[in-house]
């Protein structure tokens, strides 16, 4: 311990502390810039080196990266993947958000004492369940269930968004609960004093007041669902076609990267377009950050 203290120069000037911590902060910034730089430079090579137009890449459904020109030429349109990612994650949020908010309101406002003491920690702990486990349960329970009772192959949009919606439940519940808890108690009391029932207080006072926090939770859940790779890949069947119904298989950006990154040679058009999909995921995560900041800004202004 004494040696450690000596190494940290505790008896001397305090410059060392400032240098160390500022240096670490600088490293954090540099790493972020490096990541963005490398993913972008590699992701842009589809457009810069292979000469694919951005419009074709984003809006074409022709995914033929390994065909010769006489067979329709190599084409890398990733609309199918974008469509898959958006469908699966948006449906997951549509299902998960109302359920999570109901659960959060229950924990924060309705549950008796035991509910608050047991439920919130339990959900926070369950938030740590790894996503592969969700995927595995989806694969071993949900997929056969859909195949036998609803129809289709089982590997489907339905299985994908159900798995994701369960996966993001804990995220949305805990953020929403924290926000509801943080509201001043007087607001609820004032509503009661005006003769409001509990439901009216929740609907007209508490939920509007917690709106920005709840929205943040939902966007974080959406971001998590959008970026999830393995859990989705295991249950959606990964067919490169726009699905006709929710019982059809589908493919997402993340699952395409997961499956093909290891099997395609570095520098080929196919491989490059996978990197471009990675860049697309990066851009989406920026978009989510901006959204969260915007929500926070609006929420702050309303108060």
């Amino acid at each position, binding site marked *: 311990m004494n040696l450690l203290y000596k190494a940290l120069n*505790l008896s001397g000037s305090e410059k060392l502390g400032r240098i*160390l911590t500022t240096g670490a902060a600088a490293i954090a910034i540099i790493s972020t810039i490096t990541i963005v730089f490398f993913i972008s430079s590699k992701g842009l090579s589809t457009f810069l080196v292979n000469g694919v137009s951005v419009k074709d890449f984003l809006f074409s459904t022709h995914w033929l990266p390994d065909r010769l020109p006489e067979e329709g030429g190599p084409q890398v349109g990733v609309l199918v993947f974008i469509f898959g990612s958006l469908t699966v994650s948006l449906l997951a949020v549509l299902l998960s958000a109302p359920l999570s908010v109901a659960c959060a309101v229950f924990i924060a406002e309705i549950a008796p004492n035991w509910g608050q003491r047991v439920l919130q920690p339990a959900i926070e702990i369950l938030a740590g369940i790894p996503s592969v486990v969700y995927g595995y349960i989806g694969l071993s329970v949900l997929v056969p269930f859909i195949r036998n009772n609803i129809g289709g192959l089982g590997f489907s949009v339905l299985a994908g968004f159900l798995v994701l919606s369960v996966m993001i439940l804990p995220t949305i519940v805990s953020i929403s609960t924290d926000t509801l808890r943080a509201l001043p108690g007087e607001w609820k009391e004032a509503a009661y004093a005006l003769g409001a029932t509990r439901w009216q207080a929740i609907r007209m006072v508490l939920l509007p007041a917690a709106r920005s926090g709840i929205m943040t939770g939902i966007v974080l859940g959406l971001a998590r669902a959008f970026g999830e790779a393995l859990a989705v890949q295991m249950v959606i069947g990964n067919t490169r076609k726009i699905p006709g119904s929710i019982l059809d298989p589908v493919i997402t950006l993340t699952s395409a990267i997961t499956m093909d990154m290891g099997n395609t040679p570095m520098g080929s058009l196919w491989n490059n377009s996978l990197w471009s999909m990675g860049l697309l995921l990066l851009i989406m995560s920026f978009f989510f950050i901006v959204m969260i900041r915007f929500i926070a800004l609006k929420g702050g202004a309303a108060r």
Partner: protein
Amino acid sequence: MNSRIADRIATVMFWAGALVVIIILGSLTGYVLYHGGKSISWDFLTKPPQVVRAGGGIGPQIFNSFYLLVLSMAYTIPMGLLVGIYLAEYAGSNRWTEIVRLSIETLNSLPSIVVGLFGLLVFVNMTGWGYSLISGALALTVINLPLMIRITEESIRGVPASLREASLALGANRWQTIIKVVLPGAFPGLVSGAIITSGRVFGEAAALLFTAGMSSPALDFSNWNIFDSSSPLNPFRPAETLAVHIWKVNTEGLIPDLRRVADGSAAVLILVVLGFNLAARYLGRIIYRRMSAT
């Protein structure tokens, strides 16, 4: 009268919503533990996996997961502490701080597969390390750093200002105060944070597929020369972790007892992660009690 009925209906609805969430999450955990619990045995936990025959275990995978955890925490904890201290103690409200926070937020929101891609490009290919534990550990550091920083900052901000002022009033400088007064005060929170972060390392898979790799060489557990390629401690060897193993046996597995292996691995994974999270909760509390009693 109407509003009273609406209130009743709403109450029932909230109960139902909460019940659904609890039932889903509870039955999910119960299902994995019940099914997997049956296949967990000493043999299963220690034996190496099989490629095409039945009867394989997950011994090397468990070792890899823990070793990767140690390697990655060796970067994450010091970096997280330093940046957390910076943000809580030194950072002013200026542009530079804003940039630091924005970077951390960006890191935090990166999908783990994107971090995996970055790891593939930089740690695996550019450094020439290939699929290796060290590449995986660095990729995991990128994923976990934001969480560690946030927890450090929160724990440090939770230390009462009076302690800091007392130390400064006694003539200690800022750095001495941080190391000798603030950090010990934040210790319970820091321990919890480090454990929670560890749990996440254990469950991560997407970022490891292309960094630590999807295979393990034959390991010789009596070989402790860390530069030898068959030594389990060699940080430059590829390593398949438990979470990756679950994914791999399910998508490319050829073994006949796939369900048994996958069930068992999932149960072990959940047990370890839940164990980490529970430990984080209780250890933090126990340390706090110890410290505040003396």
